[in-house]
């Protein structure tokens, strides 16, 4: 038997009733290894208006480049206190923030290492399907050879790379622009 995956529908404006039971904005408990980063930004629409009813879900490897998932069979350490999953809503100004550790590198389809990255699902009222994007890190030499960044036209790659914030130690800014000339790059990677 074979049938198509169920059709996606928007989360609508009232998702906090069901999804905000399990907000997770801090992935880096004290005993998790790795470089701590605070990532903050805004979700903006095609008129540069804030999107106050969006929610981001993130997924990432631990600092060793190992996912907490049975299909990651790499010979790298797991960390019991690091799930790699976060769920982050925007506020009335479209702002979001989360704390995590910079992930280690994981392989690409050719077996070369990808640059450190966090994968992101974006849900919102008005999004009939989730959007998928990635967050990369600034001053990271591996970005130049990352297979996914190379799939993106050079002028748009910057939308995927978080920026340092002047005076903020360990603080990175990454904005998500849903539509427009500087819209964030979104990926087609499945459903």
């Amino acid at each position, binding site marked *: 038997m074979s049938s198509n995956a169920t059709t996606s529908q928007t989360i609508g404006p009232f998702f906090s009733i069901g999804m905000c039971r399990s907000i997770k904005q801090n992935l880096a408990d004290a005993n998790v290894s790795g470089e701590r980063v605070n990532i903050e930004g805004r979700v903006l629409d095609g008129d540069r208006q804030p999107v106050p009813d969006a929610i981001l879900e993130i997924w990432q490897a631990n600092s060793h480049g190992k996912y907490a998932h049975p299909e990651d069979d790499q010979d790298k350490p797991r960390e019991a206190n690091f799930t790699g999953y976060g769920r982050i809503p925007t506020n009335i100004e479209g702002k979001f923030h989360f704390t995590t550790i910079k992930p280690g590198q994981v*392989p690409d389809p050719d077996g070369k290492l990808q640059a450190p990255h966090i994968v992101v699902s974006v849900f919102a009222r008005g999004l009939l399907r989730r959007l998928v994007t990635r967050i990369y890190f600034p001053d990271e030499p591996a970005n130049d050879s990352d297979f996914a960044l190379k*799939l993106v036209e050079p002028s748009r790659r910057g939308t995927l790379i978080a920026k340092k914030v002047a005076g903020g130690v360990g603080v990175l800014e990454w904005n998500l622009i849903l539509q427009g000339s500087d819209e964030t790059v979104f*990926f087609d990677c499945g459903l």
Partner: protein
Amino acid sequence: MARILPYRRPHPETQPRYLHSPYASTIKRAPAKPPVYLPQTLSEITGPSFPNVVTDIKATDLTRQHHGDPLGERIIVSGRVIDEDGRPLRQALIEIWQANAAGRYLHESDQHQAPLDPNFTGCGHALTDNEGKYRFVTVRPGAYPWGNHHNAWRPAHIHFSVFGPAFATRLVTQMYFSGDPLLPFDPIFNCTADEGARNRLISVFDWETTIPSQALGYRFDIVMSGREATPMER
């Protein structure tokens, strides 16, 4: 070298496009540029799991979360979470949220002139069992008006969020009720071109799960992306 077994991409027209102008909120939120095709890597074929989620009676029975009984028609919503090859997905986390029987959400943005129900929150969650089955007890949600166009009403629906085995299979959808006269007019239900795909969002009345003198049963099966037949080297 270990191998990556990717998840299948959706069949064309069985998933909505981002821009669907009858649903006005898509107009400024749909990306203008097409998404960049990305082969799946370890980052996409892995994903979160939730082994420690507590799924007690209050999580799965939305009529027992308060001291009194909620108003409305009591229903059982159950089904299976399977992949495109019919295999059951075990330990899949399902989260649901919905309006009360009067069509009002317990949310500050919902200003619809219908009463809140002090005995109904409208939120539940469950993990599928070894056969991929889940089951909720709730009340049938009411239809409610919204500002999308003149005299716009959403058909009765329950929101479903489902975590499958991987980031690549993450799904959020809505379940509807057969025979709802509002379905042909709802731009969200009708956003998907493929009629068969659309209609699979409509739950089926089910005698088998109906409990005599207590609750009507509705069945809603959820299908998540299956795997490609051929692995890719990674």
